[in-house]
Protein backbone atom coordinates (compact mmCIF):
# COMPACT_ATOMS: atom_id res chain seq x y z
CA UNK A 1 0.00 0.00 0.00
CA UNK A 2 1.77 3.15 -1.17
CA UNK A 3 1.38 5.86 1.40
CA UNK A 4 2.02 9.34 0.17
CA UNK A 5 2.09 12.28 2.52
CA UNK A 6 -1.68 12.62 2.18
CA UNK A 7 -2.53 9.07 3.26
CA UNK A 8 0.03 9.38 6.03
CA UNK A 9 -1.71 12.46 7.40
CA UNK A 10 -5.10 10.81 6.90
CA UNK A 11 -4.15 7.75 8.94
CA UNK A 12 -2.50 9.76 11.72
CA UNK A 13 -5.43 12.22 11.74
CA UNK A 14 -7.96 9.39 12.01
CA UNK A 15 -5.95 7.82 14.83
CA UNK A 16 -5.74 11.13 16.69
CA UNK A 17 -9.50 11.62 16.25
CA UNK A 18 -10.19 8.18 17.74
CA UNK A 19 -7.79 8.93 20.62
CA UNK A 20 -9.70 12.13 21.37
CA UNK A 21 -13.17 10.64 20.93
CA UNK A 22 -12.85 7.47 23.03
CA UNK A 23 -12.60 9.26 26.42
CA UNK A 24 -15.63 11.41 25.51
CA UNK A 25 -17.76 8.39 24.54
CA UNK A 26 -16.51 5.93 27.17
CA UNK A 27 -15.26 7.92 30.16
CA UNK A 28 -15.45 5.11 32.75
CA UNK A 29 -12.10 3.94 34.19
CA UNK A 30 -12.86 0.39 33.04
CA UNK A 31 -13.29 1.46 29.43
CA UNK A 32 -10.15 3.59 29.55
CA UNK A 33 -8.22 0.61 30.89
CA UNK A 34 -9.43 -1.57 28.01
CA UNK A 35 -8.60 1.20 25.56
CA UNK A 36 -5.07 1.52 26.97
CA UNK A 37 -4.67 -2.24 26.47
CA UNK A 38 -5.83 -1.80 22.88
CA UNK A 39 -3.18 0.88 22.25
CA UNK A 40 -0.49 -1.33 23.82
CA UNK A 41 -1.45 -4.36 21.74
CA UNK A 42 -1.68 -2.14 18.68
CA UNK A 43 1.97 -1.10 19.11
CA UNK A 44 3.05 -4.77 19.02
CA UNK A 45 0.68 -5.53 16.14
CA UNK A 46 2.09 -2.56 14.19
CA UNK A 47 5.59 -3.96 14.36
CA UNK A 48 4.39 -7.36 13.29
CA UNK A 49 2.36 -5.78 10.48
CA UNK A 50 5.57 -4.28 9.13
CA UNK A 51 7.27 -7.67 9.25
CA UNK A 52 4.35 -9.65 7.83
CA UNK A 53 2.58 -7.23 5.58
CA UNK A 54 5.44 -5.20 4.24
CA UNK A 55 8.23 -7.77 4.11
CA UNK A 56 6.08 -10.90 3.88
CA UNK A 57 7.87 -12.70 6.72
CA UNK A 58 5.96 -14.61 9.39
CA UNK A 59 6.72 -14.69 13.11
CA UNK A 60 4.83 -17.12 15.32
CA UNK A 61 6.96 -16.24 18.33
CA UNK A 62 6.55 -12.52 18.50
CA UNK A 63 5.16 -12.53 22.02
CA UNK A 64 8.63 -13.67 23.07
CA UNK A 65 9.90 -10.15 22.39
CA UNK A 66 6.93 -8.73 24.26
CA UNK A 67 7.94 -10.92 27.17
CA UNK A 68 11.50 -9.62 27.05
CA UNK A 69 10.28 -6.02 27.20
CA UNK A 70 7.82 -6.75 29.98
CA UNK A 71 10.19 -8.77 32.15
CA UNK A 72 13.11 -6.37 31.68
CA UNK A 73 10.87 -3.64 33.03
CA UNK A 74 9.88 -5.82 35.97
CA UNK A 75 13.29 -7.30 36.78
CA UNK A 76 15.54 -4.26 36.34
CA UNK A 77 14.27 -2.50 39.46
CA UNK A 78 14.16 -5.73 41.47
CA UNK A 79 17.58 -7.19 40.74
CA UNK A 80 19.66 -4.26 39.48
CA UNK A 81 18.04 -1.43 41.39
CA UNK A 82 17.37 0.43 38.17
CA UNK A 83 14.63 2.90 37.42
CA UNK A 84 11.65 1.15 35.69
CA UNK A 85 11.91 3.40 32.67
CA UNK A 86 15.64 2.72 32.25
CA UNK A 87 14.91 -0.99 32.65
CA UNK A 88 12.35 -0.77 29.90
CA UNK A 89 14.96 0.91 27.70
CA UNK A 90 17.31 -2.00 28.41
CA UNK A 91 14.49 -4.38 27.51
CA UNK A 92 14.04 -2.73 24.12
CA UNK A 93 17.78 -2.96 23.60
CA UNK A 94 17.85 -6.63 24.62
CA UNK A 95 14.97 -7.49 22.27
CA UNK A 96 16.65 -5.62 19.43
CA UNK A 97 20.01 -7.31 20.02
CA UNK A 98 18.42 -10.75 20.26
CA UNK A 99 16.49 -10.14 17.04
CA UNK A 100 19.68 -8.93 15.38
CA UNK A 101 21.64 -12.00 16.47
CA UNK A 102 19.09 -14.67 15.59
CA UNK A 103 17.50 -12.77 12.72
CA UNK A 104 20.12 -13.33 10.08
CA UNK A 105 20.23 -17.14 10.25
CA UNK A 106 16.49 -17.53 10.94
CA UNK A 107 15.32 -15.21 8.18
CA UNK A 108 17.05 -17.34 5.56
CA UNK A 109 14.24 -19.83 6.17
CA UNK A 110 11.09 -19.48 4.12
CA UNK A 111 7.37 -19.70 4.78
CA UNK A 112 6.38 -22.44 7.16
CA UNK A 113 10.00 -23.18 8.10
CA UNK A 114 10.40 -19.58 9.24
CA UNK A 115 7.11 -19.96 11.11
CA UNK A 116 8.36 -22.94 13.09
CA UNK A 117 11.76 -21.35 13.79
CA UNK A 118 10.17 -18.19 15.21
CA UNK A 119 7.71 -20.37 17.08
CA UNK A 120 10.65 -22.13 18.71
CA UNK A 121 12.22 -18.81 19.65
CA UNK A 122 9.02 -17.70 21.38
CA UNK A 123 8.71 -21.02 23.19
CA UNK A 124 12.28 -20.74 24.48
CA UNK A 125 11.71 -17.24 25.89
CA UNK A 126 8.46 -18.37 27.52
CA UNK A 127 10.17 -21.44 28.96
CA UNK A 128 12.96 -19.40 30.54
CA UNK A 129 10.42 -17.02 32.11
CA UNK A 130 8.45 -19.95 33.54
CA UNK A 131 11.43 -21.98 34.74
CA UNK A 132 13.91 -19.50 36.23
CA UNK A 133 11.77 -19.04 39.32
CA UNK A 134 14.38 -17.32 41.54
CA UNK A 135 14.91 -14.61 38.92
CA UNK A 136 11.53 -14.26 37.20
CA UNK A 137 9.11 -15.42 39.86
CA UNK A 138 8.06 -18.33 37.68
CA UNK A 139 4.52 -19.09 36.48
CA UNK A 140 2.96 -16.99 39.26
CA UNK A 141 4.32 -13.80 37.76
CA UNK A 142 5.99 -10.78 39.30
CA UNK A 143 5.11 -7.32 40.58
CA UNK A 144 6.28 -4.25 38.69
CA UNK A 145 7.13 -1.09 40.68
CA UNK A 146 5.12 2.03 39.97
CA UNK A 147 6.63 4.42 37.46
CA UNK A 148 7.67 7.77 38.89
CA UNK A 149 8.81 10.60 36.68
CA UNK A 150 10.57 13.47 38.52
CA UNK A 151 8.48 12.83 41.61
CA UNK A 152 5.22 12.43 39.67
CA UNK A 153 3.58 9.09 40.42
CA UNK A 154 2.24 7.87 37.10
CA UNK A 155 -1.08 6.28 37.97
CA UNK A 156 -4.70 6.01 36.93
CA UNK A 157 -6.40 4.69 33.80
CA UNK A 158 -6.77 8.14 32.22
CA UNK A 159 -3.04 8.89 32.55
CA UNK A 160 -2.10 5.56 31.07
CA UNK A 161 -4.69 5.98 28.34
CA UNK A 162 -2.88 9.09 27.15
CA UNK A 163 0.63 7.71 27.59
CA UNK A 164 -0.11 4.55 25.62
CA UNK A 165 -2.16 6.47 23.07
CA UNK A 166 0.67 8.89 22.38
CA UNK A 167 3.15 6.02 22.14
CA UNK A 168 0.87 4.37 19.59
CA UNK A 169 0.65 7.59 17.61
CA UNK A 170 4.46 7.83 17.56
CA UNK A 171 4.80 4.18 16.63
CA UNK A 172 2.30 4.59 13.79
CA UNK A 173 4.06 7.72 12.57
CA UNK A 174 7.40 5.88 12.46
CA UNK A 175 5.84 2.86 10.76
CA UNK A 176 4.19 5.03 8.09
CA UNK A 177 7.48 6.78 7.43
CA UNK A 178 9.25 3.46 7.18
CA UNK A 179 6.68 2.25 4.65
CA UNK A 180 7.29 5.35 2.61
CA UNK A 181 11.11 5.18 2.75
CA UNK A 182 13.61 3.46 0.51
CA UNK A 183 13.75 0.64 3.06
CA UNK A 184 9.97 0.28 2.73
CA UNK A 185 10.23 0.06 -1.04
CA UNK A 186 13.03 -2.48 -0.77
CA UNK A 187 10.92 -4.57 1.59
CA UNK A 188 7.92 -4.47 -0.74
CA UNK A 189 10.19 -5.54 -3.57
CA UNK A 190 11.60 -8.52 -1.68
CA UNK A 191 8.06 -9.42 -0.56
CA UNK A 192 7.10 -9.87 -4.22
CA UNK A 193 10.24 -11.77 -5.19
CA UNK A 194 13.51 -12.03 -3.31
CA UNK A 195 15.40 -13.01 -6.42
CA UNK A 196 14.05 -10.12 -8.46
CA UNK A 197 14.74 -7.70 -5.60
CA UNK A 198 18.33 -8.87 -5.23
CA UNK A 199 18.82 -8.57 -9.00
CA UNK A 200 17.96 -4.87 -8.86
CA UNK A 201 20.42 -4.39 -6.01
CA UNK A 202 18.34 -4.80 -2.85
CA UNK A 203 20.36 -6.33 0.00
CA UNK A 204 17.62 -8.85 0.87
CA UNK A 205 19.20 -10.28 4.02
CA UNK A 206 19.98 -6.86 5.48
CA UNK A 207 16.52 -5.42 4.85
CA UNK A 208 14.76 -8.46 6.29
CA UNK A 209 16.98 -8.16 9.36
CA UNK A 210 16.20 -4.44 9.75
CA UNK A 211 12.45 -4.97 9.73
CA UNK A 212 12.77 -7.99 12.07
CA UNK A 213 14.68 -5.90 14.60
CA UNK A 214 12.15 -3.06 14.31
CA UNK A 215 9.27 -5.48 14.84
CA UNK A 216 11.02 -6.96 17.87
CA UNK A 217 11.61 -3.53 19.42
CA UNK A 218 7.95 -2.57 18.84
CA UNK A 219 6.87 -5.76 20.61
CA UNK A 220 9.27 -5.12 23.50
CA UNK A 221 7.96 -1.55 23.80
CA UNK A 222 4.42 -2.94 24.00
CA UNK A 223 5.57 -5.45 26.62
CA UNK A 224 7.29 -2.76 28.69
CA UNK A 225 4.26 -0.45 28.53
CA UNK A 226 2.05 -3.35 29.56
CA UNK A 227 4.28 -4.13 32.55
CA UNK A 228 4.27 -0.50 33.73
CA UNK A 229 0.55 -0.10 33.15
CA UNK A 230 -0.59 -3.43 34.60
CA UNK A 231 2.06 -3.45 37.38
CA UNK A 232 2.08 -7.22 37.21
CA UNK A 233 3.34 -9.61 34.55
CA UNK A 234 3.14 -13.37 34.14
CA UNK A 235 4.98 -15.54 31.58
CA UNK A 236 1.70 -15.67 29.61
CA UNK A 237 2.70 -12.32 28.11
CA UNK A 238 5.28 -14.29 26.10
CA UNK A 239 3.13 -17.39 25.54
CA UNK A 240 2.37 -19.16 22.28
CA UNK A 241 -1.26 -18.06 22.46
CA UNK A 242 -0.19 -14.42 22.73
CA UNK A 243 1.95 -14.86 19.61
CA UNK A 244 -1.00 -16.37 17.77
CA UNK A 245 -3.19 -13.52 19.00
CA UNK A 246 -0.74 -10.95 17.61
CA UNK A 247 -0.63 -12.67 14.22
CA UNK A 248 -4.43 -12.86 14.20
CA UNK A 249 -4.64 -9.12 14.94
CA UNK A 250 -2.47 -8.35 11.93
CA UNK A 251 -4.28 -10.71 9.58
CA UNK A 252 -7.81 -9.89 10.71
CA UNK A 253 -7.19 -6.16 10.46
CA UNK A 254 -5.63 -6.48 7.04
CA UNK A 255 -2.13 -7.62 6.16
CA UNK A 256 0.24 -4.79 5.46
CA UNK A 257 -2.24 -2.17 6.51
CA UNK A 258 -1.16 0.05 9.39
CA UNK A 259 -4.68 1.14 10.34
CA UNK A 260 -5.58 -2.53 9.93
CA UNK A 261 -3.16 -3.51 12.68
CA UNK A 262 -4.84 -1.03 15.04
CA UNK A 263 -8.32 -2.25 14.11
CA UNK A 264 -7.24 -5.88 14.53
CA UNK A 265 -5.71 -5.12 17.93
CA UNK A 266 -8.87 -3.30 19.00
CA UNK A 267 -11.09 -6.16 17.89
CA UNK A 268 -9.08 -8.92 19.55
CA UNK A 269 -8.65 -6.92 22.77
CA UNK A 270 -12.24 -5.71 23.12
CA UNK A 271 -14.00 -8.87 21.90
CA UNK A 272 -12.84 -11.16 24.72
CA UNK A 273 -13.87 -8.46 27.23
CA UNK A 274 -17.27 -8.16 25.60
CA UNK A 275 -17.64 -11.91 25.22
CA UNK A 276 -17.31 -12.50 28.97
CA UNK A 277 -21.05 -11.76 28.85
CA UNK A 278 -21.42 -15.13 27.13
CA UNK A 279 -19.69 -16.80 30.08
CA UNK A 280 -18.64 -20.28 29.06
CA UNK A 281 -19.52 -19.71 25.41
CA UNK A 282 -16.77 -17.08 25.22
CA UNK A 283 -14.17 -19.20 23.42
CA UNK A 284 -16.64 -20.82 21.04
CA UNK A 285 -17.97 -17.42 19.98
CA UNK A 286 -14.46 -15.97 19.60
CA UNK A 287 -13.40 -18.88 17.37
CA UNK A 288 -16.56 -18.58 15.30
CA UNK A 289 -16.09 -14.83 14.82
CA UNK A 290 -12.47 -15.30 13.70
CA UNK A 291 -13.59 -17.84 11.07
CA UNK A 292 -16.44 -15.62 9.86
CA UNK A 293 -14.19 -12.56 9.58
CA UNK A 294 -11.58 -14.46 7.61
CA UNK A 295 -14.10 -16.12 5.31
CA UNK A 296 -16.07 -12.98 4.50
CA UNK A 297 -13.34 -10.32 4.69
CA UNK A 298 -10.40 -12.42 3.67
CA UNK A 299 -8.05 -9.53 2.92
CA UNK A 300 -8.76 -8.27 6.42
CA UNK A 301 -11.19 -5.72 7.78
CA UNK A 302 -9.63 -2.47 6.64
CA UNK A 303 -8.70 -3.46 3.04
CA UNK A 304 -11.92 -5.51 2.82
CA UNK A 305 -14.16 -2.61 3.75
CA UNK A 306 -12.14 -0.20 1.62
CA UNK A 307 -12.64 -2.61 -1.29
CA UNK A 308 -16.39 -2.80 -0.69
CA UNK A 309 -16.63 1.00 -0.62
CA UNK A 310 -14.71 1.53 -3.86
CA UNK A 311 -16.74 -1.17 -5.59
CA UNK A 312 -19.96 0.53 -4.53
CA UNK A 313 -18.66 3.88 -5.71
CA UNK A 314 -17.71 2.37 -9.08
CA UNK A 315 -21.14 0.73 -9.50
Amino acid at each position, binding site marked *: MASGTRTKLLVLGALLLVLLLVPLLFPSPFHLRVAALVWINAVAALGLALLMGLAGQVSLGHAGFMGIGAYATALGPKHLGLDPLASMGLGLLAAGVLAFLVGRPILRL*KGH*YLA*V*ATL*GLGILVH*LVLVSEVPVTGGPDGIQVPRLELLGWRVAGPATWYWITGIMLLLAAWLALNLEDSSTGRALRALHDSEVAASVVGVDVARHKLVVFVIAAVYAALAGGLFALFNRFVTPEVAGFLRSIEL*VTMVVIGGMGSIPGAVVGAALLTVLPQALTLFHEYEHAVLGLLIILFMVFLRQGIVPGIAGLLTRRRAA
Partner: protein
Amino acid sequence: MAELVQLLFAGLTTGAVYALVALGFTLIFQASEVVNFAQGEFVMLGGMVTVFAFKAGLPLPLAAALAIAVAVTTGLLLHRLAIEPAKGATVVTLIIVTIGASILIRGIAQIVFDKQFHALPAFTGDEPFRLLGAAILPQSLWVLAGAAAIVFGLWLFMERTLLGKAVQATAANRLAAELVGIDTRLVLALAFAVSAAIGAVGGILVTPITLTSYAVGTILALKGFAAAMLGGIGNPVGAVVGGLVLGLLEAFAAGWISSTYKDGVAFLVILLVLLAMPQGLLGRRAVERV
Protein backbone atom coordinates in the same frame (compact mmCIF):
# COMPACT_ATOMS: atom_id res chain seq x y z
CA MET B 1 21.21 -49.73 29.88
CA ALA B 2 17.93 -49.86 31.81
CA GLU B 3 17.74 -46.07 31.76
CA LEU B 4 18.48 -45.95 28.06
CA VAL B 5 15.70 -48.42 27.24
CA GLN B 6 13.33 -46.59 29.58
CA LEU B 7 13.94 -43.23 27.89
CA LEU B 8 13.85 -44.83 24.46
CA PHE B 9 10.37 -46.24 25.08
CA ALA B 10 9.11 -43.03 26.66
CA GLY B 11 10.41 -41.06 23.68
CA LEU B 12 9.02 -43.43 21.08
CA THR B 13 5.60 -43.43 22.75
CA THR B 14 5.18 -39.64 22.78
CA GLY B 15 6.99 -39.50 19.45
CA ALA B 16 4.40 -41.86 17.93
CA VAL B 17 1.62 -39.45 18.90
CA TYR B 18 3.54 -36.48 17.49
CA ALA B 19 4.10 -38.54 14.34
CA LEU B 20 0.37 -39.16 13.98
CA VAL B 21 -0.40 -35.45 14.37
CA ALA B 22 2.37 -34.59 11.91
CA LEU B 23 1.02 -37.18 9.48
CA GLY B 24 -2.40 -35.52 9.68
CA PHE B 25 -0.78 -32.13 9.00
CA THR B 26 1.03 -33.60 6.01
CA LEU B 27 -2.04 -35.21 4.46
CA ILE B 28 -4.03 -31.99 4.51
CA PHE B 29 -1.04 -29.91 3.48
CA GLN B 30 -0.36 -32.15 0.49
CA ALA B 31 -3.94 -32.01 -0.71
CA SER B 32 -4.48 -28.30 -0.15
CA GLU B 33 -1.40 -26.35 1.07
CA VAL B 34 -3.42 -25.63 4.21
CA VAL B 35 -1.52 -25.87 7.50
CA ASN B 36 -4.29 -27.11 9.76
CA PHE B 37 -3.68 -25.85 13.30
CA ALA B 38 -6.90 -27.57 14.38
CA GLN B 39 -5.12 -30.92 13.97
CA GLY B 40 -4.48 -31.25 17.71
CA GLU B 41 -8.20 -30.87 18.41
CA PHE B 42 -8.85 -34.18 16.62
CA VAL B 43 -6.53 -35.86 19.13
CA MET B 44 -8.41 -34.13 21.95
CA LEU B 45 -11.79 -35.24 20.52
CA GLY B 46 -10.55 -38.81 20.17
CA GLY B 47 -9.61 -38.95 23.85
CA MET B 48 -12.46 -36.91 25.33
CA VAL B 49 -15.35 -38.54 23.40
CA THR B 50 -14.02 -42.00 24.27
CA VAL B 51 -13.73 -41.07 27.94
CA PHE B 52 -17.26 -39.70 28.16
CA ALA B 53 -18.87 -42.46 26.05
CA PHE B 54 -17.04 -45.05 28.17
CA LYS B 55 -18.23 -43.39 31.38
CA ALA B 56 -21.77 -43.40 29.99
CA GLY B 57 -21.55 -47.19 29.85
CA LEU B 58 -20.48 -47.94 26.27
CA PRO B 59 -17.91 -50.72 25.88
CA LEU B 60 -14.44 -49.35 25.13
CA PRO B 61 -14.25 -50.41 21.44
CA LEU B 62 -17.68 -48.85 20.72
CA ALA B 63 -16.73 -45.68 22.60
CA ALA B 64 -13.55 -45.48 20.54
CA ALA B 65 -15.46 -45.99 17.29
CA LEU B 66 -17.89 -43.24 18.30
CA ALA B 67 -14.96 -40.92 19.06
CA ILE B 68 -13.45 -41.53 15.63
CA ALA B 69 -16.83 -40.88 14.02
CA VAL B 70 -17.18 -37.59 15.93
CA ALA B 71 -13.67 -36.51 14.92
CA VAL B 72 -14.25 -37.39 11.27
CA THR B 73 -17.54 -35.48 11.24
CA THR B 74 -15.76 -32.51 12.80
CA GLY B 75 -13.04 -32.74 10.16
CA LEU B 76 -15.58 -32.84 7.34
CA LEU B 77 -17.51 -29.90 8.82
CA LEU B 78 -14.26 -27.95 9.19
CA HIS B 79 -13.53 -28.53 5.53
CA ARG B 80 -17.06 -27.82 4.31
CA LEU B 81 -17.88 -24.80 6.50
CA ALA B 82 -14.54 -23.07 6.98
CA ILE B 83 -11.85 -24.17 4.53
CA GLU B 84 -13.91 -24.41 1.38
CA PRO B 85 -15.63 -21.03 1.75
CA ALA B 86 -12.17 -19.46 2.25
CA LYS B 87 -10.82 -21.11 -0.90
CA GLY B 88 -8.31 -18.94 -2.72
CA ALA B 89 -7.35 -16.95 0.37
CA THR B 90 -3.66 -16.56 1.24
CA VAL B 91 -1.82 -19.21 3.24
CA VAL B 92 -1.67 -17.05 6.37
CA THR B 93 -5.39 -16.30 6.17
CA LEU B 94 -6.13 -20.02 5.96
CA ILE B 95 -3.90 -20.63 8.98
CA ILE B 96 -5.90 -18.07 10.94
CA VAL B 97 -9.12 -19.82 9.84
CA THR B 98 -7.85 -23.12 11.24
CA ILE B 99 -6.72 -21.39 14.44
CA GLY B 100 -10.21 -19.93 14.75
CA ALA B 101 -11.59 -23.43 14.21
CA SER B 102 -9.37 -24.87 16.92
CA ILE B 103 -10.51 -22.18 19.39
CA LEU B 104 -14.12 -22.95 18.41
CA ILE B 105 -13.74 -26.73 18.81
CA ARG B 106 -11.98 -26.27 22.16
CA GLY B 107 -14.70 -23.84 23.26
CA ILE B 108 -17.45 -26.31 22.38
CA ALA B 109 -15.58 -29.20 24.03
CA GLN B 110 -15.29 -27.16 27.21
CA ILE B 111 -19.09 -26.73 27.26
CA VAL B 112 -20.06 -30.26 26.19
CA PHE B 113 -17.50 -31.99 28.41
CA ASP B 114 -15.79 -30.17 31.28
CA LYS B 115 -12.46 -28.65 32.28
CA GLN B 116 -11.16 -31.65 34.25
CA PHE B 117 -8.44 -34.12 33.34
CA HIS B 118 -9.71 -37.59 32.48
CA ALA B 119 -8.16 -41.02 32.22
CA LEU B 120 -9.06 -44.19 30.37
CA PRO B 121 -8.22 -47.67 31.65
CA ALA B 122 -5.25 -49.18 29.84
CA PHE B 123 -6.40 -51.61 27.13
CA THR B 124 -4.57 -54.61 28.55
CA GLY B 125 -3.86 -53.82 32.16
CA ASP B 126 -1.38 -51.34 33.60
CA GLU B 127 1.06 -53.78 35.17
CA PRO B 128 4.45 -52.77 33.69
CA PHE B 129 6.62 -55.55 32.33
CA ARG B 130 10.41 -55.72 32.46
CA LEU B 131 12.54 -55.31 29.37
CA LEU B 132 16.32 -55.16 29.80
CA GLY B 133 15.78 -53.75 33.27
CA ALA B 134 13.34 -51.04 32.20
CA ALA B 135 9.69 -50.96 33.25
CA ILE B 136 7.46 -50.68 30.17
CA LEU B 137 3.72 -50.03 30.23
CA PRO B 138 1.76 -52.41 27.98
CA GLN B 139 -0.15 -49.36 26.74
CA SER B 140 3.11 -48.03 25.25
CA LEU B 141 3.13 -51.06 22.99
CA TRP B 142 -0.48 -50.32 21.99
CA VAL B 143 0.52 -46.78 21.03
CA LEU B 144 3.53 -47.95 19.03
CA ALA B 145 1.67 -50.80 17.34
CA GLY B 146 -1.34 -48.59 16.62
CA ALA B 147 0.83 -45.88 15.09
CA ALA B 148 2.71 -48.42 13.01
CA ALA B 149 -0.57 -49.95 11.79
CA ILE B 150 -1.86 -46.51 10.79
CA VAL B 151 1.32 -45.66 8.91
CA PHE B 152 1.23 -49.00 7.11
CA GLY B 153 -2.49 -48.69 6.34
CA LEU B 154 -2.01 -45.19 4.99
CA TRP B 155 0.85 -46.37 2.80
CA LEU B 156 -1.30 -49.20 1.42
CA PHE B 157 -4.12 -46.77 0.75
CA MET B 158 -1.89 -44.23 -1.00
CA GLU B 159 0.01 -46.74 -3.13
CA ARG B 160 -2.50 -49.51 -3.79
CA THR B 161 -5.89 -47.84 -4.26
CA LEU B 162 -7.21 -45.63 -7.03
CA LEU B 163 -8.44 -43.09 -4.49
CA GLY B 164 -4.97 -42.98 -2.91
CA LYS B 165 -3.44 -42.31 -6.31
CA ALA B 166 -5.98 -39.52 -6.77
CA VAL B 167 -4.78 -37.95 -3.50
CA GLN B 168 -1.18 -38.19 -4.69
CA ALA B 169 -2.08 -36.70 -8.05
CA THR B 170 -3.86 -33.79 -6.37
CA ALA B 171 -0.85 -33.22 -4.16
CA ALA B 172 1.50 -33.21 -7.14
CA ASN B 173 -0.52 -30.86 -9.31
CA ARG B 174 -4.10 -29.92 -8.60
CA LEU B 175 -4.90 -28.50 -12.03
CA ALA B 176 -3.48 -31.50 -13.86
CA ALA B 177 -5.40 -33.80 -11.51
CA GLU B 178 -8.63 -31.98 -12.31
CA LEU B 179 -7.88 -32.25 -16.02
CA VAL B 180 -7.72 -36.03 -15.84
CA GLY B 181 -11.07 -36.09 -14.11
CA ILE B 182 -10.17 -36.25 -10.41
CA ASP B 183 -12.70 -34.58 -8.15
CA THR B 184 -10.17 -32.59 -6.10
CA ARG B 185 -12.92 -31.32 -3.79
CA LEU B 186 -13.65 -34.89 -2.81
CA VAL B 187 -9.96 -35.57 -2.36
CA LEU B 188 -9.60 -32.61 -0.03
CA ALA B 189 -12.66 -33.67 2.00
CA LEU B 190 -11.14 -37.13 2.19
CA ALA B 191 -7.84 -35.71 3.41
CA PHE B 192 -9.64 -33.90 6.24
CA ALA B 193 -11.62 -37.03 7.14
CA VAL B 194 -8.55 -39.30 7.19
CA SER B 195 -6.47 -36.73 9.11
CA ALA B 196 -9.21 -36.43 11.70
CA ALA B 197 -9.46 -40.20 12.06
CA ILE B 198 -5.69 -40.54 12.46
CA GLY B 199 -5.62 -37.82 15.11
CA ALA B 200 -8.54 -39.36 16.98
CA VAL B 201 -6.92 -42.80 17.05
CA GLY B 202 -3.75 -41.21 18.43
CA GLY B 203 -5.81 -39.54 21.16
CA ILE B 204 -7.57 -42.77 22.10
CA LEU B 205 -4.34 -44.77 22.25
CA VAL B 206 -2.41 -42.30 24.38
CA THR B 207 -5.11 -41.17 26.84
CA PRO B 208 -4.54 -44.11 29.26
CA ILE B 209 -0.92 -42.91 29.62
CA THR B 210 -1.04 -39.13 29.43
CA LEU B 211 -4.66 -38.35 30.45
CA THR B 212 -6.67 -35.87 28.42
CA SER B 213 -8.63 -32.65 28.82
CA TYR B 214 -10.42 -30.20 26.54
CA ALA B 215 -7.20 -28.16 26.21
CA VAL B 216 -4.60 -30.76 25.17
CA GLY B 217 -5.01 -29.97 21.45
CA THR B 218 -3.02 -26.73 21.32
CA ILE B 219 0.29 -28.10 22.51
CA LEU B 220 -0.12 -31.21 20.34
CA ALA B 221 -0.80 -29.11 17.25
CA LEU B 222 2.32 -27.11 18.03
CA LYS B 223 4.48 -30.22 18.51
CA GLY B 224 2.97 -31.95 15.49
CA PHE B 225 3.64 -28.89 13.35
CA ALA B 226 7.22 -28.73 14.59
CA ALA B 227 7.63 -32.45 13.88
CA ALA B 228 6.24 -32.08 10.36
CA MET B 229 8.63 -29.20 9.69
CA LEU B 230 11.55 -31.08 11.21
CA GLY B 231 10.94 -33.94 8.80
CA GLY B 232 10.28 -31.66 5.85
CA ILE B 233 6.74 -30.52 5.15
CA GLY B 234 4.63 -32.45 2.67
CA ASN B 235 6.59 -35.66 3.15
CA PRO B 236 4.71 -38.42 5.05
CA VAL B 237 7.91 -40.33 5.83
CA GLY B 238 9.42 -37.08 7.06
CA ALA B 239 6.39 -36.52 9.30
CA VAL B 240 6.82 -39.90 10.98
CA VAL B 241 10.58 -39.47 11.33
CA GLY B 242 10.13 -35.91 12.60
CA GLY B 243 7.57 -37.03 15.18
CA LEU B 244 9.70 -39.85 16.51
CA VAL B 245 12.84 -37.69 16.60
CA LEU B 246 10.98 -34.96 18.48
CA GLY B 247 9.62 -37.47 21.00
CA LEU B 248 13.07 -38.98 21.55
CA LEU B 249 14.68 -35.56 21.87
CA GLU B 250 12.21 -34.60 24.58
CA ALA B 251 12.59 -37.85 26.47
CA PHE B 252 16.40 -37.79 26.45
CA ALA B 253 16.52 -34.08 27.23
CA ALA B 254 14.21 -34.70 30.18
CA GLY B 255 16.24 -37.69 31.35
CA TRP B 256 19.75 -36.42 30.85
CA ILE B 257 19.63 -32.62 30.80
CA SER B 258 16.65 -31.06 32.55
CA SER B 259 13.00 -31.96 32.65
CA THR B 260 11.96 -28.30 32.85
CA TYR B 261 13.85 -27.51 29.65
CA LYS B 262 12.89 -30.58 27.62
CA ASP B 263 10.69 -28.54 25.26
CA GLY B 264 13.47 -25.96 25.01
CA VAL B 265 16.05 -28.58 24.05
CA ALA B 266 13.68 -30.02 21.46
CA PHE B 267 13.03 -26.64 19.85
CA LEU B 268 16.69 -25.69 20.02
CA VAL B 269 17.59 -28.82 18.07
CA ILE B 270 14.81 -28.09 15.55
CA LEU B 271 16.22 -24.58 15.10
CA LEU B 272 19.71 -25.95 14.52
CA VAL B 273 18.50 -28.62 12.11
CA LEU B 274 16.54 -26.07 10.10
CA LEU B 275 19.51 -23.73 9.95
CA ALA B 276 21.69 -26.53 8.59
CA MET B 277 18.95 -28.06 6.42
CA PRO B 278 16.40 -25.33 5.60
CA GLN B 279 14.00 -27.87 4.04
CA GLY B 280 13.90 -30.21 7.03
CA LEU B 281 15.50 -33.62 7.37
CA LEU B 282 13.81 -35.23 4.37
CA GLY B 283 12.35 -32.25 2.50
CA ARG B 284 12.95 -31.58 -1.13
CA ARG B 285 14.83 -28.47 -2.16
CA ALA B 286 12.38 -25.85 -3.34
CA VAL B 287 13.48 -23.85 -6.35
CA GLU B 288 12.09 -20.36 -6.62
CA ARG B 289 11.05 -19.47 -10.13
CA VAL B 290 11.30 -15.89 -11.21
